[in-house]
């Protein structure tokens, strides 16, 4: 295997990629839900609208864990702790696939005319010892769940229809209880920052799914005030 004539350092490559704005580190997102009894109708509509209609959508069965890294600010109260969240996801139906480590920034809802939620997002494939790595790094597991559902694609957009399951007492992926009587529907696209035209692409597609499902920007702060 021939190597580069003059290898550029990885940090220099990353810096130049960041400057040229080619790293897809922004997620444009819309979410909604559909009750189980109506899920099949939505499934068929998505099958018709999305790519690869003949082969059918991919199914997935993932286990996701959310970790947090907290450092207390000197002299600060517990509320002033800086917190950094990381998610680890693995495919239960394909144990040979790499695990995925994901960083998600704070979601920005923006103005009323901003069609989608915007959040920074870094997806990193890694080896299965990532949980041990994060524990030694100082992270603590916050929560975990299992997601089972369907994955559709339309161009650069990704649509998932999935059911969330709570991990059973035995903590094994086989003992699952569904958390809701509905499917979570997510429409997202990963792109470099500043490509706001893609948000309109998502909005147009979301319109085509009405009235089966209403995909909209979810305000997490309002959700937290209910709990």
């Amino acid at each position, binding site marked *: *295997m*021939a*190597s*580069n*004539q*003059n*290898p550029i*350092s*990885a*940090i220099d*490559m*990353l810096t130049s990629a*960041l400057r040229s704005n080619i*790293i897809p*580190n922004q997620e444009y997102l819309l979410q909604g839900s559909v009750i189980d009894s109506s899920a099949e109708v939505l499934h068929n509509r998505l099958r018709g609208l999305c790519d690869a209609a003949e082969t059918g959508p991919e199914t997935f069965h993932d286990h996701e864990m959310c970790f947090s*890294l907290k*450092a*207390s*600010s*000197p002299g600060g109260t517990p509320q002033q702790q*800086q917190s*950094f969240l990381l998610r680890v996801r693995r495919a239960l139906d394909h144990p040979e696939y790499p695990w995925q*480590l994901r*960083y998600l920034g704070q979601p920005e809802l923006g103005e009323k005319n901003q069609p989608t939620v915007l959040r920074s997002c*870094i*997806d*990193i*494939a*890694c*080896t299965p*010892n*990532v949980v*041990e*790595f994060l524990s*030694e*790094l*100082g992270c603590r597991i916050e929560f975990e769940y299992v997601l089972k559902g369907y994955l559709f694609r339309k161009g650069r957009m990704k649509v998932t229809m999935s059911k969330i399951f709570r991990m059973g007492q035995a903590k094994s992926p086989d003992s699952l209880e569904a958390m809701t009587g509905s499917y979570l529907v997510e429409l997202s696209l990963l792109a470099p920052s500043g490509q706001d035209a893609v948000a309109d692409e998502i909005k147009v597609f979301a319109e085509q799914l009405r009235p089966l499902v209403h995909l909209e920007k979810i305000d997490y702060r309002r959700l937290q005030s209910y709990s």
Partner: protein
Amino acid sequence: MGVIVLQLFAVPEGKSGPQVIDILTKRVTSLGGVLSGSFMVDCETYTSVASLGATRSVHLLHNSETPASVFALLEAASGNKTVALVADNLFDLLMLKLSNFYQAKKQTKIESRGPRFEAGDFLVKLGSVTMGPAFKGILVEVEYQACSLPAACWDLIREFMQGFLGGCVPSTPPQYIQNRFGDMLGPIDGINQYLEQFNAFRKTTGIR
């Protein structure tokens, strides 16, 4: 995938790093080695901030031989365990985002860089190790690509290495290889050896 062995080559009195590389280059090419570009292995270390508790270090290494990967070696707080994570290039971006928790000390960034030769099933890399502007020594990497089991090929590797490095190559394998003599080795084992060598270079003032 192959067995990677690192060998420190002491710089003789009165000679400079580039002169030693020239001498070794002539020896490798006379053994049939063909120059095929250059290589670089670098290491940046991040240390945890005090508010995170016991001090932990994350060493981020990159190897031009595996350009799509980043090796993150985490030294556990207890000091007796290292967890080696292999991830995509974007892991570098994640470490930058973690700057409130793990901070890089710029002056400890260390790299080994130089010409790369192919000699049949062997890959030979003659690295000049530098830390910032300071030259620290010569580190030679030899990889025997045809076999991943040290027990089956150590003698062949040693004979090949002694052919151009001379007596500085010991007859017993390095401790790292001895501890894994019967195991299948891969790129992470080369990286672990680089980290051991880089840590030794960092502790030495002047040329090793």
